[in-house]
């Protein structure tokens, strides 16, 4: 079969491509060009890097090594509109966005999947740690990866049922160590490349600088007050885009009682950051919107499902209710740092049911 492998230039997608090739499929590597190299990256590449940031070169090197085709698709405009700009706007609104989900929804499992079909491919393969289960009735389940530490199903909750039929995740059954072992065994030039958990367009982790560059000087959030829950001003901040709910470091203020303070709320329109004790971070539930259900419907209201409120969240038992497009999630036990802008993803055991985007915590 002809399969398109989405190749980032990292170890995971490289091994996915190599395993498909080894299994006898006709592999076509596709790499998404998502942005221009930053000036720092251009310097690191020795300047004059006309075409590809290093990762695209790595992806091409892997495909050359395997002797398979590799093409670059230029999604810079789409990535800016669908991912980078919403990312920056979210910070202005006091939210903490999750761009990887947006990229999966709008590019990888939309535009790239379409391109794979246009190239006559039977499947789109990615290096995600997740599994697709064929129910045998023409429908499919999205499931967590076997390796719970690497599970990336959280980022995939927006996948359409009909897309699942054509998506393969060959790493879903594997451990990360197995993947590196395969990379070494197959002699892939990227076998010892370090894992990146950074957001690809914020390679140095400086979110605020990226936000400022995207929104422009006019829209950069102004300095404002840091207040406690009673509204008393404790200090000032350099702009709401520097803060996320649950953050403790970098506040520059202390409580009169000498307690550790955490960010409880970021109010973008007002420019206010509210801080307080750690127990004030607990929420009984949350409200989310823009929901997506892989089987087309939410779980029944009386079912206890598992809710994950951020990528590294271990999951919490919860009940859910849907009113219109609004999703209400009530945790069995209160959860810490429910963060507007992140996704809430719901599971039934291993199965991903769907989810939505967190609007606000509820209760206290």
């Amino acid at each position, binding site marked *: 079969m*002809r399969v398109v492998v989405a190749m980032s230039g990292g170890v995971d997608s490289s091994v996915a491509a190599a395993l498909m090739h080894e299994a006898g499929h*006709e592999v*076509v590597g596709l790499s998404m*060009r998502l942005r221009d190299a930053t000036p720092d990256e251009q310097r690191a590449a020795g300047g004059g890097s*006309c*075409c*590809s940031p290093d990762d695209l070169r790595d992806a091409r090197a892997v495909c050359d090594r395997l002797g398979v*085709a590799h*093409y*670059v*698709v*230029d999604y810079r405009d789409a990535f800016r509109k669908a991912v980078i700009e919403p990312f920056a706007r979210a910070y202005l609104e006091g939210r903490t966005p999750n761009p990887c989900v947006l990229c999966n929804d709008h590019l990888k499992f939309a535009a790239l999947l*379409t*391109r794979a*079909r*246009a*190239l*006559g491919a039977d499947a789109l393969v990615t290096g995600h740690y997740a599994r697709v289960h064929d129910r045998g009735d023409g429908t499919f389940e999205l499931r967590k990866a076997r390796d719970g530490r690497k599970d990336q199903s959280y980022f995939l909750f927006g996948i359409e049922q009909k897309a699942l039929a054509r998506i393969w995740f060959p790493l879903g059954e594997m451990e990360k160590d197995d993947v590196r072992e395969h990379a070494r065994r197959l002699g892939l030039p990227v076998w010892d490349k370090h894992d990146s958990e950074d957001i690809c367009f914020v390679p140095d982790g400086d979110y605020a600088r990226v936000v400022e560059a995207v929104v422009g000087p006019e829209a950069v959030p102004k300095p404002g007050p840091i207040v406690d829950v009673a509204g008393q001003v404790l200090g000032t901040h350099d702009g709401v885009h520097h803060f996320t709910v649950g953050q403790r470091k970098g506040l520059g203020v202390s409580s009169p009682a000498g307690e550790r303070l955490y960010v409880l709320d970021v109010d973008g329109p007002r420019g206010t950051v509210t801080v307080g004790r750690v127990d004030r971070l607990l929420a009984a539930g949350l409200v989310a919107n823009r929901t997506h259900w892989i089987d087309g419907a939410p779980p029944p209201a009386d079912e206890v499902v598992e809710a994950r409120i951020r990528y590294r969240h271990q999951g919490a038992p919860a009940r859910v209710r849907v009113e219109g497009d609004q999703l209400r999630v009530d945790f069995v036990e209160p959860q810490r740092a429910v963060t507007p802008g992140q996704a809430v993803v719901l599971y039934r055991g291993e199965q991903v049911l769907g989810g939505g985007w967190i609007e606000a915590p509820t209760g206290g």
Partner: protein
Amino acid sequence: MNAWRGACKLPGPMEAYLDHNATAPCLPAAARAAADWLLGPPGNPSSAHAAGRRARAAIEQARGQVAAALGARPGEVVFTSGATEALHLAVAGLVPPGGHVVASAVEHPALFGACRVAGAEVTRVPVDALGRLDPAAFRAALRPETALVAVMAAQNEIGNLYPVRAVAEAVGPVPVLSDAAQAFGKVALEPGPALVVVSGHKVGAPAGVGALWVAPGLDLAPFVAGGPQERGRRGGTENTAGIVAFGVAATALPERLASMPRVEALRDGLEAALRARVPGLRVHGDPAARLPNTLSFRCVGVDGDLLLAALDLEGVRLSSGSACSSGSLAPSSVLRALGLDDDAARAGVRVSLGPETTEAEVERLIDLLPAIVARAHLSGAA
């Protein structure tokens, strides 16, 4: 039977190499000449001994062959590593820092790169929707300090032929630099320019060798300084094997030119068949003045990179825009210069044939393209 296929190893039956403007197959005689040189006794053309004299003689023989193909005298031909270097040599040799250059908007990126390196200011002469140039517009763009006018003999992407002689007459006495990398071996070159750039690998020599023809009486400042080679115009030990092969390829130029009517008939048949079978096909360039081997087109709404990849997977090699921009960078600046918007420019693809091209290769594209375009529409990619 096509005599050009001869001993040359070409792609198998399922492959169709339709990208001759990117690089042409090396002629067997040229490859043999290079191999014979490399396998023979060594010799640096700058050495004073017999081995050096032998190398020098080989280069001078090739210089005579290339000069003959250009209708020039041997002393007017400077060998370079290729067309890009020849353009740099010409610009650096004639344009002082901060000098002014008038160039067509559709010159090869190497010309604009050479101007940037030279610190030149460039006025771009626009083309119309068919990619045509008006010689009077070059004259209108001249300034007292204009050091050079650049107009290519044939455009590499859309294949347009340009009125080099008329431009030279319009801008005289400012010297005209004409990039003939694509025109050489496909059409007769017009007289008029003071400098002409040609490339070996577009006419059956290996890549890595090209030449700059400089009109008598024109003084060029040395470019790669530090050696007396090429009369001080281009230092560095010569690529003798490549130069020898270029000379052999140049001797085959009359045959190459003689094959062009057949190539043109193939191209015209391809164009007619594609127009008939592919809905939304638009052809770029000037049908009245076009290289005989080149066909630039787009299928409305279908990305050129997608067509390139889909055809490549079936064994058909062509390019989207020029080879440099087909790494999926920006939409073709040449198609943009024709007035196409970004999406339309991204849809462009180029087919380029050569004397070695067979009917079967062209048929393969005719068979595949309609289905590939239909699949793109079905998938939602168009």
